[in-house]
């Protein structure tokens, strides 16, 4: 072997060794479990990455995000969660509702999980208490489930003459029972009648709006559910088409042409999810991180939609709205 050969060999070994060492200091991997496809999640992902960046993690630079999308088929969530758990990711982020959080929990009791949902994680059995989650789960709750009754209240104040309101419920949702109960109690104290309509698929949504129009209800109140939340555009289009005044949990709905929304600030909740994911990557245990409730519940009103429905919005509603879309 000549000297040149030796040098070439050493060079080759160095070239081979550099990426090998880089691989050794493997980047932490976030397993991101999404119930839908990336498009409806886009605004949430922006907020999530903001939160990650606050803990000085940037995707591609310090951390890898491994996405699993259920494409709206929530039955696929447990298998996707198991897949992420099998890849031994550093942390599983399960945003966008109780279904996702429950699927993640069923997949692993070891890998930390950060959830983001609208319901009460204690009632769902995800954590022992808000201050002491206890297990491998912690996260953020957006209060959207809790404020379902407020949506009914807003509708009844807007239509003081109406005594019957339709309520849209996703029967597959883990929080549907509690929300229905909550709404019935509110209806009782407000002296209203409720017509519960269920929908968990595309044709049922269409049918639901038809039913609302036919039953001459004062309006349609959506319970908090990711299935509805991620279909805000579709719901807004249906509401316009059927001339149904409706209120949902997310601002996406009035922005897309719906009448109103009242619910937790998803930007805040997803940002906090990102912060918690970052803190867990840094080594904090989820049991030490209390579940956070978002501080901001926002009311969005679309004046154009109101005009289309021939509604004159009262001043108190406009003054309490966080954003009025002209």
């Amino acid at each position, binding site marked *: 072997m000549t000297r040149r050969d030796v040098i070439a060999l050493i060079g080759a070994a160095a070239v081979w060794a550099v990426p090998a060492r880089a691989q050794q200091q493997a980047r932490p991997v976030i397993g991101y479990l999404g119930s839908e496809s990336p498009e409806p999640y886009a605004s949430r992902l922006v907020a999530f990455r903001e939160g990650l960046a606050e803990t000085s993690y940037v995707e591609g630079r310090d951390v890898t995000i491994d996405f699993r999308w259920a494409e709206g088929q929530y039955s696929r969530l447990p298998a996707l969660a198991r897949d992420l758990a099998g890849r031994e990711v550093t942390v599983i982020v399960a945003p966008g509702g109780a279904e996702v959080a429950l699927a993640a929990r069923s997949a692993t009791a070891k890998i930390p999980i950060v959830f983001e949902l609208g319901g009460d994680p204690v009632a769902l059995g995800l954590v022992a*208490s*808000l*201050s002491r989650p206890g297990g491998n789960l912690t996260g953020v709750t957006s209060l959207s489930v809790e404020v379902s009754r*407020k949506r009914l209240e807003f509708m009844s104040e807007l239509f003081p003459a109406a005594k019957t309101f339709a309520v849209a419920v996703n029967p597959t949702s883990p929080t549907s029972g509690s929300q229905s109960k909550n709404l019935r109690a509110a209806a009782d104290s407000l002296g209203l009648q409720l017509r519960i309509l269920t929908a968990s698929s595309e044709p049922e949504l269409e049918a639901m709006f038809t039913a609302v129009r036919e039953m001459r209800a004062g309006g349609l109140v959506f319970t908090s559910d990711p299935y509805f939340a991620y279909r805000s555009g579709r719901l807004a289009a249906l509401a316009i088409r059927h001339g149904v005044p409706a209120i949902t949990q997310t601002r996406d709905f009035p922005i897309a042409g719906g009448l109103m929304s009242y619910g937790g600030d998803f930007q805040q909740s997803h940002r906090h999810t990102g912060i918690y994911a970052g803190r867990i990557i840094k080594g904090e245990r989820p049991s030490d*991180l209390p579940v956070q*409730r978002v*501080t901001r519940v926002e009311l969005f009103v679309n004046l154009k939609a109101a005009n289309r429905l021939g509604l004159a919005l009262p001043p*108190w509603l406009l*003054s309490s709205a966080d954003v009025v879309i002209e």
Partner: protein
Amino acid sequence: MTPSPPAPRSSLFAKYFLALFAAVVVPLLIAGGSEAWFGHHDQRARLNDLLDAEARASAAKIQDFIDGIRDQLAWTVQLPWSDSIDERRRLDVFRLLGQVPAVASLTLVDATGRERLFVSRIGLNRIEGGFDHSANPAFTSVRSGRAWFGPVTFHAGSEPFMTIAVAGNRAAVGVVVAEVNLKLIWDVISAIRVGRTGEAFVLDRPGRLIAHPDISLVLRADETATRPLQALRARIVARNGQAVSGRDITGQTVLAAMAQIPGVDWSVVVKQPVTEAFGPIYAALWRTGALLIGGAGLAAALAYWLTQRMVGPIRLLEDGVARIGAGQFDHRIELATGDEFERLATRFNEMAGELAVSQERSERIGRLKRFLAPQVAELVERTGDDGVLEGRRIEVVVVFGDLRGFTAFSARAEPETVMRFLSDYYDALDRVVSDHGATLTNFSGDGMMVLLNAPVSCPDPALRAIHMARDMQMSVQSLLLDRRVLDHRLGFGVGLAMGPATVGRIGSEGRLDYTAIGTVVNLASRLCASAGDTEILVDAVAANAVGGRAPLVELKARALKGFDQPVRVFAAVTGEGR
């Protein structure tokens, strides 16, 4: 060469290093030490003021947060209650909720304690709910035109809430009671930065954590976890509000100061890591340390350089002196340092040169002494000039003397006897020659040749020569007289002649003699040869020069070898003859 002296006890390098070290490092040490000491002192005092100001500023910010809510609430208790809720009051309340996100719900209560309006972000609103609040501490405790702050409670064991009640100026306007979500103080507290990484937190009266930049600490509502923070507050209280050092939750040592918020009776504590607070001092210490190391290095380098500059020339000088001392006078110390060393080297070189000259002279004089009369030698030595020995032609008197019958004696007698006798003989003659200031040019066997008037001129050399010859005869004869008992037939004859001769040094460098060449030498030698025992034969020139001052007898002219004509010969009358 002489052996080199033993190694010195202490080296120049060590001395220079110590001196420079003392010169550089000691002032640095003193300056650095005092800087550290006074700096620490000043910094402590400054930090005390600084943290105190930070604490007051932070408390003012939290106070602003609370006052802002109170002032907003006060707007809702301006108008007296009528029978029904007017639209304007509802608007005020909704606007307040829009503007003050921390208010989760609020209740308007009339003068009788009856709930007129309840608005919530989460729960259902109530109009004319009619609930009786007359026993509610918020209603009973609040005084007209003032605000009342309830205790902090943790909703669902996690989120801190506080009830604020504000009463109108008149009883008729009633009271507003608001539930305030204290989590929103986070926006204020997280914006507070003390120094670079220092932060602030808020404890309520019982010591529960209400606000902290890490909101999860607050939401954990864990009093054991926040005990270090309570301890910190307790220490500040114990020190009468002076800034103290202690440990925070992460175990980091911090410097902390505190300010109270009146009304709610909360404590706002600001803390800064000690390492950061005293950062400038530590930096100064590091600087001093670096300077010390640098100074020591500089001192060492300077010492090395200086000693090299000193030791090199000194070694050269030492070596040169040793060589010169060993007699190597042609050695020259080459030094071009341009300073005192060069001067010293020049002096040494001059000294070596002078030593060489003087040694050469003393060697020459030593050689001269062999054939010069002591007086002459001394003269030459004193004047330092042997020019007198240069070759020249002058009038000299040459005296030859030798023993008669010596060959037979030396053949018969024991060698020791011969040598002892010769030794005595030469001693005697040498003494006489010296006494008369003559120059003994050489001995050979039993004969000798003596010069007068050369190399040192003397007055009346002929007379002097005759006197000397007489003395020589006397001393040799008395010597022989002593030896006669040994039955040796020995005698001594002298011949002298006067005339011009070439005198000077002849011979090689190692073997140099002073002698005379010329007819007069031959004549003197022949006269000596022809002289009998006790006889002193004098030539006509010498006899003429003496005149009548010494008794001389003219003998019959003799034919001498090497002389064509018979030579006139005179005999000096010796003491024996008298």
